[in-house]
């Protein structure tokens, strides 16, 4: 049941940093994601297996090299802020380059 305050938000972002979603980006992603209460799923498009956006293991197994288009889905009271923050992180190449 989705309550009045529950939102759902989706953003698509392309991974542009050289080594893709490796160790440090994964941990930065999890750091940011953990600040929000929303449930976060990350996948590579409709029909692909989603990964829990707050799980370092799941994100590592996702295998997202440079060029991958990730879909971020958040469900919760702060869903919109969540996907915005995560999208921004990816767009700034995780502050790496």
């Amino acid at each position, binding site marked *: 049941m989705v309550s009045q305050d529950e939102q759902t938000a989706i953003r698509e972002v392309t991974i542009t940093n050289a080594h893709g979603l490796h*160790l*440090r980006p994964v*941990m930065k992603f*999890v750091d940011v994601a953990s600040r929000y209460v929303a449930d976060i799923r990350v996948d590579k498009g409709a029909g692909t297996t989603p990964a829990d956006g707050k*799980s*370092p293991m799941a994100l*590592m197994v996702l*295998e997202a090299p440079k060029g991958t288009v990730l879909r971020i889905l958040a469900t919760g009271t702060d869903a919109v802020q969540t996907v915005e923050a995560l999208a921004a992180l990816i767009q700034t190449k995780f502050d790496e380059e």
Partner: protein
Amino acid sequence: MEIVQGITVAPGVAIAHAVVLDAEEYRIPYRQVDPAERERELQLLHNALEASITELKEQKETVAAQLGHDAADVFNWHIGVLRDPAIRRSIEQLIRERHHSAAYAVSFVMRSHQRRFMQMSDPLLSERIRDVRDIERRLVRHVLGESREDLAHLTKEVILVAHDLSPSQTARLSGTRAVGIVLDVGGSTSHTAILLRSLGRPSVIGVKDVSTRVSGGDLVIVDGTNQLVIINPDEPTLEQYRAQKLDYGRLMVELESLRDLEPVTRDGVRIYLYGNIEFPGEAKASLMYGADGVGLYRTEFLFLRGEGEPGEEEQYRAYVSALTGAQGKPVTIRTFDLGADKYTQEKHYEQERNPMLGLRSIRYSLQHLDMFKTQLRAILRASVHGPVRLMFPLIISLMEFRQAKMTLHDAMEDLQDEGIPFAKDIAVGMMMETPAAAIQCREFAREVGFMSIGTNDMIQYVLAVDRGNERVNRFYTPGHPAVVRLLRDVIRTCNREGVDCSLCGEMAGEPLYTLLLLGLGLRSFSMAPRNVPEIKKLVRLATISQAERVARKAMTFETERQVINFLRDATKKMVPGDPIY
């Protein structure tokens, strides 16, 4: 139930619970717990998670201080994984719903994650396997706390599963209750494989990622005869194997009764069966299996205890021990066949690009005359304790053989001057294991006291295949027509020149090739001692004329597959119903 395939190193069936060995040599004691224990296991898990995270934070600080923050990144990931709620939930679920112990549940979940990484193409990602293994080890270590056990203290029979075993770990197995062995890696003629074969317990290696599929406590069947490993077998499969185990046991008893019978063919030709040994103690074991003596004593195993070059006294004691164990039967000692392995590679600044074709074996000895003479002295001194033959490995030229003999004569002169006795008429021979030597067989036959055909190396050189490389070792086969032809020529030349010729490669102990070798004129075989009864059985059932017919026919085929199929049929006809074939 999972069934995985590997390469058999020792036949037979073993059924027991698994112990998965890793670098820390611990094992998981229980797979299941009483339902009443579940809360305790959950608590153990939570405590272990906290302790692991604390430990990692400390290590991270240390690493960051010494190497900078980048190096410490990986620790963040480890901590992140330990905090991952989904992982914690899946472990807890196994404890709550399936009554698994905390240690087993951790291991199970971590290994399934390891497997997912193994399927990835990105090498950076697949390195994470090591991380996950590390996390697993750390967590299980904290769960088990003081109750870690090692192999020596096993109270029940177990199947040992590991990524790999070093030769010294393998050597220690004989004192344990590991009744079967399964390894991820390994070509079938590496040192570890040779030792596993001597150990005699059903062993299957080269099973790729089996150590991630098995968790401590799983029931495992090692089917050494069919090269299979079965994890958590279902009832029907378990029943079937229990029955098979009984059959095999009966066969082994039958073969033992052959021990005191002579290996004579039905038409009265005496064949000589010897044992290949790596340790002095095995000389006695060879006799126990009914061998006529030791056909090959691989002395390089003296280096495997890892303390560098063995001194003269240590070697002398080992050789005397072998002679004593052989109780007056002949012992052929081969000088160090080192090389393409740790000992010689570590001695140089630059590793050789191609150690197999490099400074190894007799070449190494001739370049390190101190070491060589020490060994020769030890062998000569031991020669007064029993009938010894001396053999040089990897000979490619007459010059080389003569050089080695000259060094031997130097050593003899020294001993004479020192007044130390030795057998002056000691027979000196060579390993026939290089194509060059095979092509010049006639010249060598006139030079040496005896020859032993080393098919393990010879086949590698002739077929240009690395027997230890899992990707190509299916091309390595004694049944290749080129190999058969070569053997025919070598054996025939030796027989014509009146030179004693034996065969000491693994092929000698493989029943599939016994008829062929007899038919080609071979009268002397040296093999892993436990194979002697089987070969003896075949020898006693055969006639030389039959063997010669088989050999003649085998030589007409063009491909190895034809040769092997033909030999298999011919052998089966002689021993119908035997589970080995």
